[in-house]
């Protein structure tokens, strides 16, 4: 369990990025931390593995206060995949890049080999194992960044904006990785402003704005609340916006995707035929 208790964080330049954040994340959960750029999402998750220590308040991971342990120890439990893969690659080959974390954590060599092979296969990067990480395409680099963290199977996997600049096929890939990770009973936290990706995932949503948590609960309830979303400077999911615009009492505003919309609208439809605008 990750417990964030009344956390305040002020950067050295004086900017207070977190203002009294309270949050509990339990094992096995899938949580999306959402908000506009600058809301404090990344600052918050950097507290989970001790990269940042709260100015006030405490962060406790599996019973251990982050102030009382090292980043390396926390990183073993909380795997943080950052936005920009170019900010971490330095090895000559893809497999060395993946092995890096394992070696830092003291895994024996035969274990390292086994895990590296397994994760490269799962992420569809086996053919590139001897290639340079810098020769990979953007999407492959993102997969490699994720691979380099999931290889040591952290209890909590945190992905910071995993869908930026990704096309449809790549997003499906990322979704697959998240699902299979959750299936092992582990926890996934994604920091994102990609509404439609969250709509498909239906996680628990934690909505942040200007250093505070505005709301914490079910995706259906939060993403469809136009006042909340407006306060957080986010747009509504397309289907939700459509439900609002239809303004029909038989069409609930908590609709998030096209399947739900179809279910609700089907019995109300009358005229068939060809429609011109």
């Amino acid at each position, binding site marked *: 369990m990750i417990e964030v208790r009344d956390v305040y964080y002020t950067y050295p330049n004086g900017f207070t990025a977190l203002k009294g954040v309270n949050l509990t994340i339990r094992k096995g959960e899938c949580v999306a931390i959402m908000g*506009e*750029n*600058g809301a404090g999402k990344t600052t918050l998750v950097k507290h989970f593995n001790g990269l940042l220590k709260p100015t006030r308040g405490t962060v406790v991971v599996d019973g251990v206060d982050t102030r009382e342990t090292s980043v390396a120890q926390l990183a073993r439990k909380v795997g943080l995949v950052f936005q920009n893969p170019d900010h971490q690659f330095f090895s000559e080959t893809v497999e060395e890049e993946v092995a890096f974390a394992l070696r830092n954590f003291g895994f024996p060599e035969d274990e390292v080999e086994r895990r590296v092979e397994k994760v490269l296969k799962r992420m569809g990067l086996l053919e590139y194992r001897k290639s340079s990480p810098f020769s990979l*395409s*953007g*999407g492959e680099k993102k997969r490699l960044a994720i691979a380099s963290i999931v290889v040591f199977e952290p209890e909590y996997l945190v992905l910071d904006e995993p869908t*930026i*600049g*990704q*096309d*449809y*096929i*790549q*997003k499906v890939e990322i979704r697959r990785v998240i699902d299979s990770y959750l299936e092992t009973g582990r926890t996934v936290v994604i920091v994102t*402003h*990609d*509404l*439609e990706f969250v*709509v498909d995932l239906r996680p628990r949503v934690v909505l942040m704005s200007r250093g505070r948590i505005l709301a914490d609960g079910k995706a259906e309830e939060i993403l469809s609340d136009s006042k909340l979303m407006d306060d957080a*400077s*986010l*747009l509504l*999911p*397309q*289907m939700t*916006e*459509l439900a609002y*615009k*239809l303004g*029909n009492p038989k069409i609930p505003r908590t609709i998030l*995707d*096209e*399947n739900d*919309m*179809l279910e609700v*609208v*089907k019995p*109300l*439809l*009358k*005229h*068939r*035929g*060809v*429609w*011109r*605008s």
Partner: protein
Amino acid sequence: MTKAIEVRDLSYRYEGSERDVLLDVNLEVEKGEFVLLTGASGCGKTTLCRCFNGLIPHFYGGDLRGEVYVAGLNVKDTPIHKLALKVGFVFQNPDSQLFSLTVERDVAFGLENLGVDRDEMRLRVDWALKTVGMEKYRYAAPYELSGGQRQRVAIAAVLAMRPEIIVLDEPTAYLDPKTALKIFQLLDGLNKRMGLTVVLVEHRLDLVSRYASRLIIMNKGRIVLDGKPSTLFHDELEEYGINVPRLVRFFRKLEGIGYEFEELPLTTDEAAEIIRRIMA
């Protein structure tokens, strides 16, 4: 009348590469169009854009076969700085295209390079900043601005050079949806009010397809679909790695139960209109 962009049988491979990244591309863009260019990663859309302002072949080298004409100029024979008068390019990264210490100097950069005199420069810089809504930040330093503000400055820097065409390569990749929408609205304004031809590479079709007069989909180096967004969306586009807007997916489902729509709606207003009529 000269077309904005004319591409004939274009094939290209990068220096030292074994495969062509562009294969037999043919394209004509009229003045004043708003072209949305999309496709899976690696389909060649960025490469194609680089051919429009001369980065290919002059900056990147490589092997270019076929013809590319931009505003009547042959890209193979015209140096980048001459093409810069006709085509402006906005890149993905908000950080690496602003290099001065103040916003207004960045906007003036291109004009300084062209030897424009100071009074004319002043006028154009003021106009460009006003057009993108950044006049209040003219003395700000780049690191003081947010991502969205930096992209606005980049657009202003391009506008100041008064090009006929503006090419943008995933300019909103690092921006949140609300900020991205504002950028698209700005581009729409430039297109409709100034007649600027816009070529925009984007993945966020749900936010921007309503502004485009034309959607071009690329796959593995070729143009596979080219037409009006509202009609093009009838096809199965997921295989091309396209993020099909949910609105479109919903209406395709309606088509699956017996409805037929000549043009698929791209905005929730249009969609609500149609559904109300069906329900009435």
